[in-house]
């Protein structure tokens, strides 16, 4: 199973429809070793469907998917053991105590231990890392939403996965817990080389935590790159404003650096101002269009 794993996740032409409603209209994406990738998109954009296909929990209608070198529809238990999963909205195991449950789930990973890669992780260390040591003997039903979410993340990590897939991991977390979560993700990536794919509808989170953002809207990835690159792709041109010969000028450009260089070379330029397109504005515009039901599959990507 160790063959050609240059990409931990490779999705090409993924299509999904529920009845007549097309959710994914040909999604292409890759996640590489050492990366933290955020799948960003408004609610209902198909983020959950995409990660469920990647996790092997949902059959796809069409397209090629390879996760850790294996088609998720044919992944065996050894493959499953290499993937950590944090899904949304759980109310399970209400009678169980925190450490009891984490220990039980941790145990299922023991046969998949490898030299230099001990599985599972130490349960008490992990509880300490997600700040649940004091709640270790609490019943699940008594946990706050934030505590539950942190336990979900701990459960996703307990098998020391090669790939961690998280669906809206910080929904319901307060800002401090959110920050701790981001630190935890980076620590896991740095220490274990875990590849992380997470979904979020929160642009700020995607910018903070991810090396790379995949923007999902209208059933396709409409932008792919670093936060700055995504801003350039979706946000439209920057505006360059200046005064020359006592007159005001405004020019729209996708390459403000080159334009400004040329402009300055002409000499007599005053009051130069470059207004970068804001990713936030662009994203809000996409969300607005999506929620109005007008998300267009052919959303202009490269204007």
């Amino acid at each position: 199973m160790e063959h050609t794993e240059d990409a931990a996740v490779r999705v090409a032409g993924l299509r999904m429809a529920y009845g007549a409603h097309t959710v994914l209209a040909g999604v292409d994406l890759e996640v590489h070793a050492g990366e933290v990738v955020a799948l960003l998109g408004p609610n209902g954009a198909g983020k959950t469907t995409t990660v469920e296909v990647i996790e092997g929990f949902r059959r796809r209608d069409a397209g090629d998917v390879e996760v850790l070198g294996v088609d998720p529809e044919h992944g065996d238990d050894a493959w499953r053991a290499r993937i950590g999963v944090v899904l949304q909205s759980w109310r399970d195991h209400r009678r169980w105590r925190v450490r009891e449950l984490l220990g039980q789930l941790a145990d299922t990973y023991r046969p998949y231990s490898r030299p230099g890669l001990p599985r599972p992780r130490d349960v008490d260390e992990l509880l300490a890392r997600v700040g649940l040591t004091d709640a270790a003997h609490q019943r699940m039903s008594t946990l706050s939403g934030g505590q539950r979410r942190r336990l979900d993340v701990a459960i996703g990590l307990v098998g020391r996965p090669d790939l961690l897939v998280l669906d809206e991991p910080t929904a319901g977390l307060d800002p401090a817990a959110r920050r701790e979560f981001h630190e935890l993700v980076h620590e896991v990536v740095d220490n274990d080389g875990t590849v992380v794919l997470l979904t979020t509808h929160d642009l700020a989170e995607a910018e903070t935590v991810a090396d790379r953002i995949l923007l999902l809207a209208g059933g396709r990835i409409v932008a792919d790159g670093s936060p700055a690159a995504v801003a350039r792709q979706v946000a439209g041109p920057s505006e360059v404003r200046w005064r020359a010969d006592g007159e005001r000028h405004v020019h729209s450009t996708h390459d403000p650096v080159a334009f400004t260089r040329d402009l300055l070379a002409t000499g007599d330029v005053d009051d130069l101002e470059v207004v970068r397109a804001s990713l936030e504005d662009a994203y809000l515009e996409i969300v607005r269009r999506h929620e109005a039901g007008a998300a267009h599959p052919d959303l202009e990507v490269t204007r």
Partner: protein
Amino acid sequence: MSTPAPRAWAVRTGVRRGLTEFRHMLRSPEDVAWNVLIGIAILVYLVTQRGTVVPGSGGLTLPDLALPGILAATILFGMVMGPAFALSAEVEDGTVLRLRTTPRGTTTYTVGMVVGQVLGALPMLAILLVPWPFLLGDPMHQGAGGWVAVVGWLLLGTLATLPIGIVGGALAARPTRVMLFVLAPVVALAFLSGVFGPQTVPAWAAGAVQAFPLYWLAHGLRSTTLPAGAEGLELGGAWHPEIAALVLLAWAVVGLVAAPVVLRRTSARQTASALAHRLQALIRG
């Protein structure tokens, strides 16, 4: 530590899971109260009927005749309703899905369910059987060996009925539907099968109930506990423990083949979006 074999390990973690769930049950005030109250209510009723001799039974008392039916009903309700409600609730709350995210989690879950539910029937059996000889006299009219045979029948009955509960819970997939599709038929079957003695079976139902495990489990238990002569009360007027054993075995075989298939299908349908949809439906009420 060397790495254990995956399948054997999944069974082992499943057994541990079942023990943990049993511990939760013993610590749950509702579960304990339910067992104790029902058990005491049955015992109190039987103690008041201890002098009631059933006509045509050759001098047997109502409690004597009722014991096998009560044991059979305990197994049926415990092994069918217990797993059906537990499984449907755990499909709904995401427990099944959570286990699906772990390697061989469905095996672990299934073994845990079986172990937990089987252990879960023990408190009720203990509440009924431990005080029985002191309150109601020795129920084993063919000697103390009857206790061993009773254990055998209860185990066979468990094998025959527990898969029905798992299939019912997996197909119903919602506790409210379990009430309709599993509880209602089981209650009807309990009435028609003559839980408290064969004389309560209506003639038109006598043939039908013999297709189901409850009648034969009760019949087998009666053949073990009641004295010679009591067979006159049975349908056909004779003991057929070998038929009883075969019918129960047949249900067990069919159930043990069908249950994993149905459970795997139900588990495979569990996805986060399905869970989210159900949550949304709950919220919208």
